[in-house]
């Protein structure tokens, strides 16, 4: 009997997925575990593998978005009849979705595993030991592929993921001299590589400015006193400052749509968050209308949920601009890779005391260097410089944002 191929739930919060393309044609012989089609979810594009082997009898959903659990194809014996199934109305082929994963060039990339065999009800088959190790190390089982009997995720699969990730890498023992650890490229890794390579193909340029953070820090100290619960950070001040600057330079608050540039009505600022599962960019919506305390509160909530793996699709969508801050690692300045289709991404370094000249005198000031990476298809150098100068001025004199 022909087996339905069901659109799997590949992670928590996933309601639907967009089929990008089929890797097999009708009539093709498919082995169990062979990639069948490419699926775009809110987080990533990945190849979905066949749960069973057979001949791809019929593709029900050639492309487009369908809900989780929808039959998308039939696998079976050659010449087998396919039951009539009401094909789910597929939405129009998805536009290249805004990629919420911003990856900066310097950020160490973690290696993702392929998604596990997930049953139609979304339950992940994993051994108790695998579950315990994953729980202890904060690894999302949905991101792993099971190599045990019937695709069960076993301890070794989790161990492999843990070794591949940066937290484990930091604690890993010394590698024997000459030993090469070969980590196979996973589907997600390939996707990240493809997307970032595509982003790299965009004509990007960078401009760099440093801001004197004396007043921004003073403002932050005042805010901290007034909002002890929200505990605003300098990054929150920067987020607010960028939002106001974006509203004044709407050509930077833009998405490149291939045949048009879409100026966005609101500054939805994505914040790059490093989690054990990897870099993720939750979005704070409408920052221009929020106070710094509100931004701090939204940011804290998003970061917590990002680290707990509890972000919803909505948390990752709608970004118009991205801030990536590696200052806490002591990075002085760095260049971020574009987060298409956004026009620009701001890479922020550490605030550090530097000798600067003021009225002919050398003085020590808390300085912060910002590098704006821009998509030249969307904005020009002068536009970018105008915007970055505004950000710098706002940081140096926050009153100007009024």
């Amino acid at each position: 009997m022909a087996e339905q191929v069901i659109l799997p739930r590949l992670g928590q919060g996933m309601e639907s997925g967009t089929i990008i393309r089929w890797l097999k044609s009708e009539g093709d012989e498919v082995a169990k575990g062979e990639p069948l089609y490419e699926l775009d979810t809110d987080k990533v594009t990945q190849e979905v593998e066949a749960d069973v082997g057979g001949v791809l009898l019929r593709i029900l959903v050639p492309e487009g978005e369908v809900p989780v659990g929808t039959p998308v194809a039939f696998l079976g014996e050659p010449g087998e009849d396919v039951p009539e199934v009401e094909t789910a109305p597929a939405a129009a082929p998805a536009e290249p979705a805004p990629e919420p994963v911003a990856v900066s060039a310097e950020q160490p990339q973690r290696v993702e595993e392929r998604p596990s065999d997930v049953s139609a009800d979304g339950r992940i088959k994993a051994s108790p030991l695998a579950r315990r190790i994953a729980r202890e190390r904060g690894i999302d089982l949905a991101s792993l592929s099971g190599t045990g009997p019937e695709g069960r995720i076993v301890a070794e699969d989790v161990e492999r993921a843990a070794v591949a990730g940066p937290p484990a890498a930091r604690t890993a023992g010394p590698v024997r001299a000459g030993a090469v650890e070969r980590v196979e490229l996973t589907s997600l890794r390939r996707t990240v590589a493809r997307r970032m390579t595509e982003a790299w193909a965009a004509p990007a340029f960078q401009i760099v400015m440093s801001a004197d953070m004396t007043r921004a820090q003073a403002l932050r100290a005042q805010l901290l006193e007034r909002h002890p619960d929200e505990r605003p950070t300098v990054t929150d001040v920067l987020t607010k400052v960028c939002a106001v600057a974006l509203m004044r330079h709407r050509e930077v608050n833009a998405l490149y749509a291939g045949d048009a540039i879409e100026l966005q009505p609101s500054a939805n600022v994505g914040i790059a968050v490093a989690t054990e599962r990897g870099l993720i960019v939750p979005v704070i919506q409408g920052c221009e209308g929020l106070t710094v305390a509100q931004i701090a509160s939204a940011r804290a909530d998003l970061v917590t949920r990002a680290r707990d793996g509890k972000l919803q699709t909505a948390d990752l969508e709608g970004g118009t601009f991205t801030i990536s801050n590696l200052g806490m690692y002591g990075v002085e300045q760095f260049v971020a890779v574009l987060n298409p289709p956004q026009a620009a991404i701001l890479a922020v370094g550490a605030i550090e005391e530097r000798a600067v000249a003021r009225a002919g005198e050398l003085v020590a000031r808390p300085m912060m260097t910002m590098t704006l990476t821009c998509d030249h298809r969307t904005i020009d150098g002068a536009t970018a410089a105008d915007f970055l100068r505004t950000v710098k001025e706002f940081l140096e004199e926050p009153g100007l944002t009024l």
Partner: protein
Amino acid sequence: MPELTYREAVRDALSRAMRADDDVFIMGEDIAEMGGSMGVTQGMLAEFGPDRVRNTPISEMAIVGAGIGAAMQGMRPVVEIMYEDFTTLAMEQIVNQAAKHRYMSGGQLRVPLTVRTQGGAGWSPGAQHAQQVEAWFVHVPGLKVVFASTPSDVRGLLWSSIYDDNTVIFFEHRTLYPLKEDVSEELEPIPLGQARVHREGEDVTVIATGRLVHEALSAAAEAEKDGVSVEVVDPRTLQPLDEETLVASVKKTNRCVVAHEAVVRGGFGAEVTAVIQHQAFDWLDAPIERVGSKFTPIPFAPVMENFVVPHADDVLDAIRRTVGRSG
């Protein structure tokens, strides 16, 4: 170091206890002149005389009942039930009398009785003489249950059973009687409730009893050729059970196979499986596999008997399932 067969080791433990202690005596069908149908008590009549090596009528209920009476009067009797299949005829005495008196008398009475019996397939004894029924007795509070698998174990455990103040049902396996092992000059008692790790390993623990200990050791040697490291543990005492050793082993290897000759359904392995899954749940990387006889009376025909009871290759298959990879 003397080498003893399993049969000689049983005899050695009985003889030493009888030399050391006048309260110890043995009773059973044909155990005196004939030396027992398995030859275990050969020569003992000559040494200890007919008062202490007593033939009985063919009545298992009477044998155990007499043993209980003597035990309650302060003796340490060791009675023999020729085949464990025949314990059915002594069930009332074992389950409702021997197991209950200490409890019902509030500790005023004790029943330090040892019921030796043997059984098992492998030599075509037929459906009524080949069963493995140890699980029945593990289910009864008030009994201790021992199943020894090697000469040194059978000797040390029988000694401890004789000197335990509770009734011990002591299982021997028919096919193990010729098995040889070097044993110490002095008899070293083995405490009841202490498992033996026969072989250390890293990848999977096989918890086996009786004949299956040896099948498991063969399977382990075979698995090693595939790079699978197998730990083999024999609980030796089924009640009380050395849960600590079993659980520790599985926590180390993360996988478990339980193996005995008795049928799988409702077997002692079910109890072990429950203990392991409960105490080592978060350490398990594969479902616990059970190995045992197929759910049928043991056939008489050797080829069919061989098919029904488990062997090393069945244990090996189970080991491979626990470490299996779908590719």
